[in-house]
């Protein structure tokens, strides 16, 4: 068995690349990607709270980072990820309760999720801007 490869090279069943991306599958992958991004974002929450407990200098360093272009970009990205994961999470809850199983309803709810993500993101950043409301 010396020439046995560790990983078999036999053909696999039809895989990701043979399928045309569909709205339902793309939104599902996005839900996982957004959730993963948000899980990484917990590091920022830990930094914020531990810095605040450590004192003004440590908190100042956190604020300085948040104020940079990279910091703002990261916060913006997390806000989009949060609103998407939150809206699509409600869609998942409705599936768990037995609704939206018709293809048409799943698609409609999917478009609603995308619209909600855009609206909530726009609303929050408008409110957060100085003199926004």
């Amino acid at each position, binding site marked *: 068995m010396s020439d046995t490869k560790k990983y078999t090279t036999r053909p696999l069943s039809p895989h990701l690349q043979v399928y045309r991306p569909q709205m339902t599958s793309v939104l599902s992958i996005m839900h*996982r990607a957004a*959730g*993963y991004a*948000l*899980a990484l974002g*917990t*590091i920022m*929450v*830990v930094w914020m*709270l*531990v810095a*605040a*407990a450590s*004192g*003004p200098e440590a*908190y*100042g360093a956190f604020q300085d980072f948040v104020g940079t272009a990279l910091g703002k970009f990261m916060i913006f990205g997390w*806000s989009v990820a*949060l609103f998407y994961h*939150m809206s699509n*999470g*409600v869609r*998942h*809850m409705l599936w*768990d309760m037995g609704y939206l199983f018709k293809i048409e309803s799943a698609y409609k709810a999917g478009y609603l999720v995308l619209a909600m993500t855009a609206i909530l993101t726009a609303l*929050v950043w408008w*409110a*957060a801007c*100085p003199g926004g409301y």
Partner: protein
Amino acid sequence: MKLKWKDDGTLKTPLARARGLGASHHGVSHWWHQRMTAVANLPLMIWLVWAVVHMQGWTYIEFTAWLAVPVNAILMILSVISVFYHAALGTQVIVEDYFHIEWMKIAKLIGIKLFFIAAGVACVFSILKIAFTG
């Protein structure tokens, strides 16, 4: 049909019941905890986003004074516990789905659990310190 075992309303055979809660031995608890924390996260994250929007331009004094208010400290602790638990459950599934080399998978699963426990303790301690000492 007359059953040879007590009908408990499930479709499980006695063997399946004797073997317990499926291959993972914890039944649907992972799935259920994911949903419970999701339900909790919804109002908590709406509150947190609303709070963060108001934090624009806050100083250290203003931020810690806000966090020291009991309702804010309590909601922040609840948010941290619920979100971190939800994140630990979610990232666990990602690792289980994509990593098939056993030792690497187990190392990642342990790493995720330890990270979120450490992160949660750090956050809760920090919130309590600010809340109790101002």
